[in-house]
């Protein structure tokens, strides 16, 4: 077997590669299998869009919080007790009757983990990363989010240090709902901007 880099030679099956990396780093005492178990479990059970939904619902019921959230996303999210990675520079952008925001990472998969969890597969796929910049209106319609042509679409590329969260419009007819009931209406996709709640 050659010891070449992944250029040129057929790569070893990726699972063996990942397992070898894990073994080698565990032998160095750097990352233990137990640590990996804990991280995996945390991301599967503790992080997720329910936290972003809580932020959105608060902004819907509290105009002062909404203003604060749009001015300083990171601080406003922390104030709800939400901590975690990839929201150190969080910008929140608000949809309105005339503008719709949508988030993409053209270079890889940057995403505000602490409020949305890890990104879905489509977010990481090349077609989404390329087409959301080139033809957002068409792609949004294909994803089940058709927008009237009078609505301006703003595409936010997370490739800088910034992470983005879309604040969707509060759905009509929800005046009587509690904050918790409102949070249950907020979908992950609406906070990425590929759907409306």
């Amino acid at each position, binding site marked *: 077997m050659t010891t070449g880099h992944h250029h040129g030679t057929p*790569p070893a099956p*990726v699972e063996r*590669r*990942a397992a070898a990396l*894990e073994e080698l780093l565990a032998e160095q005492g750097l990352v233990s299998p137990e*640590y990996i178990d804990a991280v995996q479990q945390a991301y599967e059970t*503790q*992080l997720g869009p329910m936290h972003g939904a809580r932020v959105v619902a608060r902004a819907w019921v509290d105009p002062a919080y909404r203003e604060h959230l749009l001015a300083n996303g990171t601080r406003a999210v922390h104030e709800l007790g939400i901590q*975690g990675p990839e929201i150190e520079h969080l910008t929140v952008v608000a949809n309105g009757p005339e503008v719709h925001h949508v988030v993409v990472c053209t270079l890889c998969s940057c995403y505000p983990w602490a409020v949305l969890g*890890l990104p879905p597969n489509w977010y990481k796929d090349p077609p989404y990363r390329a087409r959301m910049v080139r033809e957002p209106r068409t792609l949004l319609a294909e994803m089940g989010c058709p927008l009237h042509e009078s609505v301006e679409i703003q595409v936010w590329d997370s490739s800088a240090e910034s992470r983005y969260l879309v604040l969707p419009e509060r759905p009509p007819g929800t005046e009587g709902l509690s904050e918790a009931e409102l949070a249950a209406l907020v979908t992950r996709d609406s906070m990425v901007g590929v759907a409306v709640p």
Partner: protein
Amino acid sequence: MRLDLDGTAAPPRRNGEPVFDAPWQGRVFGLAAGVVARRFDGDWAPFRRCLVDAIADRPERAYWDSWTAALEELVVGAGLLGRDAVARRIAD
């Protein structure tokens, strides 16, 4: 890792899909998180640069394959493993 998240935030995740499609993906994610925490002070930026390069290098490669390649590049670049260490271990 700092995860001060109360367990009461239990509205539906509405992910519509599992976080990881296969167990090995969760493991290589956790491995990267461990390296970032232990060797990069929790800063994902160096890993992210490797990931951007790995994706640009082979855009059609599956995402977690690029992730694995990026992690290998990161630890080799940081001097934690030799360039051939992974390939040699696989060959063993």
